[in-house]
């Protein structure tokens, strides 16, 4: 099965398709159960980074009895190094809209929202046009489904699903306690399905070409293709659709500049992989691949040997310190301590052993933080400090 580790390009997301009306009509002629089964058998997992099975998510929301439900498309793409959603929404918006409408049909929701980050304000006019056209068609086929854009205002944490609901409800975007989960208690306390832009776009592919076609791509536990936002020290930055399960070594061969020292997979909240581990690292969701398998929202930042990993970490931690919502202790204070801690070590005010104390702190943050932000600070911190300890020290 070594072949599946190789880099394989795919072309589904951005493929020009002018048949969305047909796909939508076809979908709503099937029963919701059929559609859910189709999704489940495709093994599509959320493309925002966490990798929750999409079919299951729809199923859970469909099972809850409530007259009002919501479908939300999470376009608060704030992870540093990620820019695929912007491209999807500007190139193939109707795929996303179709995905939302089908989801609405499946779970019984009549309202959909696209939570668009404030930085993408300029997408609004085009997207609104697409929505108007789309809603017009829905009305035509008697599908009661409306979509509205909700603009964010510059807060990374609002990408966290419950924080996003809070934000839409006009409050501070602070994550809620879980449980209850969105499938039973989401936006306005109603059952809600919230999916990433890319995930919704993939559902279009699945509903059009069938689950089999999607399932055949990728490897076990990580099926299908995925968009990767490639940036940093690379001769060809941009967005690429690749099959999941590739090894990082192959990826670097293709996109590296020949001097790649490390790759940050998954943005600031992801992991840093040093050169010596490229071979044993595969890109996909946690599963039984040999070596390490890393989930990702699609951000791939490459660093060559001229880059100081201290600066990278410093930049990430500064980002987290600012973007933490500030409500829970481990994240609010922890991020400040990590940032000040590595600076103190770098300046020689604290000795290198202090890094171990900080590593222990990230462990605590991972265990106890209220939401994914605080929990994932540990990822980049520990992977960078463990692999480039010498660069952190005075």
């Amino acid at each position, binding site marked *: 099965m070594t072949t599946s580790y190789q880099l394989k390009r795919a072309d589904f997301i951005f493929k020009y398709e002018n048949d969305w009306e047909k796909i939508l009509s076809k979908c709503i002629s099937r029963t919701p159960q059929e559609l859910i089964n189709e999704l489940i058998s495709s093994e599509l997992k959320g493309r925002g980074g966490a990798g929750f099975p999409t079919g299951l998510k729809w199923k859970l929301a469909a099972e809850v009895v409530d007259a009002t439900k919501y479908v939300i498309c999470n376009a608060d793409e704030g992870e540093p190094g990620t820019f695929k959603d912007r491209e999807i929404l500007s190139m193939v918006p109707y795929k996303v809209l179709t995905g939302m409408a089908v989801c609405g049909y499946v779970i019984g929701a009549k309202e959909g929202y696209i939570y668009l980050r404030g930085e993408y304000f300029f997408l609004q006019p085009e997207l609104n046009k697409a929505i108007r056209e789309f809603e017009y068609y829905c009305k035509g086929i008697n599908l009661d489904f409306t979509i509205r854009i909700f603009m964010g205002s510059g*807060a990374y*944490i609002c990408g966290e699903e419950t924080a996003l609901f809070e934000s839409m409800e006009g409050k*501070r*975007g602070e994550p809620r*306690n879980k*449980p209850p989960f969105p499938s039973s208690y989401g936006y306005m306390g109603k059952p809600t399905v919230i999916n990433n832009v890319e995930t919704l776009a993939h559902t279009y592919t699945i509903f059009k070409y069938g689950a089999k076609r999607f399932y055949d791509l990728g490897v076990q536990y990580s099926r299908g293709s995925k968009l990767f936002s490639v940036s940093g020290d690379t001769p060809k930055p941009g967005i690429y659709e690749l099959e999941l399960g590739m090894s990082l070594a192959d990826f670097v061969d293709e996109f590296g500049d020949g001097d790649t020292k490390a790759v940050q997979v998954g943005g600031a909240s992801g992991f840093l992989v040093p050169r010596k581990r490229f071979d044993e690292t595969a890109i996909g969701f946690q599963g039984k691949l040999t070596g390490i398998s890393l989930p990702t929202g699609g951000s791939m930042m490459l660093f060559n040997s001229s880059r100081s990993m201290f600066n990278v970490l410093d930049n990430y931690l500064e980002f*987290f*310190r*600012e*973007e*933490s*919502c*500030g*409500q*829970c*202790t*481990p994240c*609010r*204070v*922890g*991020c*400040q*301590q990590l940032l*000040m*801690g590595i600076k*103190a070590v770098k300046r020689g005010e604290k000795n290198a052993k*202090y890094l171990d*104390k900080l590593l*222990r*702190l990230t*462990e*605590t943050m*991972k*265990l*106890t*933080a*209220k939401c994914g932000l605080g*929990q994932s600070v540990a990822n980049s911190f520990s992977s960078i400090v463990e692999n480039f300890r010498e660069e952190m020290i005075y």
Partner: protein
Amino acid sequence: MVKKIKISINGIFVEVEDGTTILDAARKAGVIIPTLCFHKDLCIAGNCRVCVVEVAGQKRLAAACATPCEEEMEIFTNSLNVLHSRKQIIELLLSEHNADCTSCFKNGNCELQKLASDYKILKQDFIRLVPFKNYTIDKYSPSIIKDDSKCIRCQRCVRTCAELQGVNALTVAYKGDLMKITTFFEKPMNDVVCSTCGQCINHCPTGALVERNYIEKVWDAISDKTKHVVVQTAPAVRVGLGEELGLGQGVRVTGKMVAALKRLGFDAVMDTDFTADLTIMEEGTELLMRLKAVLVDHDPAVKLPMATSCSPGWIKYIEHLFPDYLDHLSTCKSPQQMFGALAKTYYAKARNLDPETIVSVSIMPCTAKKFEAARPEMHDSGYRDVDYVLTTRELAIMIKQAGIDFMKLDDMHFDRLMGESTGAAVIFGATGGVMEAALRTVYELVTGRDVPFENLNITPVRGMDGVKEASIKIENPLKEWAFLDGVELKCAVAHGLVNAKKVMDSIISGQANYHFIEFMACPGGCLGGGGQPIPTSPEIRLKRAKAIYAEDEGMPLRKSHQNPEIIKIYKDFLGKPLSEKSHHLLHTQYTARKRY
């Protein structure tokens, strides 16, 4: 029938109702989980993360206060992971906390201090964040001091201000490292909608919110031989003070308190209860006048329902949020201010003292009284009516400072002239008490008979329900009150400003047609006031209320108009209720304020 589920906590099996949080289940099983942001009075936040526990099969730890139990859950409150994480979280909290305990007002009664001492965080490795931040200490309010360097962002104050009081003076602002608890545009507490009720102080686990204390000022006055220092004590103080001095909750210490005040060196120790009785006389008469004006004269300028005005937190609240409804307020000053005005007139004259030399101190369960005493209207005696207001907590500190062995004190009585009171005055300290006291007197004035409740206990207005209603039908009144025959006097009682808002909203929307409403700013009335001992909880407030009613039942006189000193003051000084002198000294007016 609520479903029962079985869980195990540290290997102990317990059965709990579906929906119970892990924290409650653990308490049931005799397992203590430490908490900080959790408070019984408030909604669940789950943000301090001190209460994290391990649930078998879950990767991450769960916040016990916010996680409901599920069938067959296996919970460990004490695993290595939990212990390590909890310790580190406390360490993190300490790193952003200004830990100058020895100069902190909350020293010895601080939840963070206790947590740190229980978990013995002996090494502070983390970088201290306090010196790197520009913390502000807001000292502008006459009632409350807010010190951000001691704040641990548990948001208990914010939830108190919004949920219990509906004031929303405090809010969470900014995010990340800048996140802080502040007011609208970071204005001083004195410039915003804050009612100065002090409930935030009662709920703050640390010393970030404390009352502005006037202990030194009072000591100076006592030491000054040229001054005659008069002190008055509010009804609720006598059922709270004991808690600060090591006695149990709900223990009455009236006699010991008086003895302690004398030992402290006050020249006269008198009772706010006296003016509480006086309030009933004035306010009761005012109510009857208003009823007459509305029912007989149809005077559109006179408004009903009439609202009580004893609670300065409530006064400031209505001035901010319902400035158009100020004419519903009784014009009576609060008992404290009546006392202050009389101390420098009636008392000075009777004792042949120069009012200039009198320093009037009051001991209150309340922080809003500090604000009230500083209002410009409160100078009717020609001087500032009340010079210093101390909370129950401050009095306890003074007693400790003076080295008084409180337990060994013999009971003493208040001094004459303004020290006599009735049971009706005592119950001013509990929610519903003013209403009950007023009805006891008004009913008797109108009908000549006792109020028709067993043992004078008007039970419908007692208890801890947020809004209570009662009505009394007046039958066979005395001749001069004939117009009230058959009138059903409708009353309501609200405590906690969020309940006050509910009642106000129902008045504005026209749903309610009460005649008389008692409003108290703090949950439970004065006994749960912002100046009372910390901690507070529904159970503690209930115990204090019980003590208040027990004090009432033990009094020989239980109706305000029976108080011999009240009869004397009307005879010697005031004339009759609502006389010109009364109007000058005992009544006031109100100011509309801004809404933020």
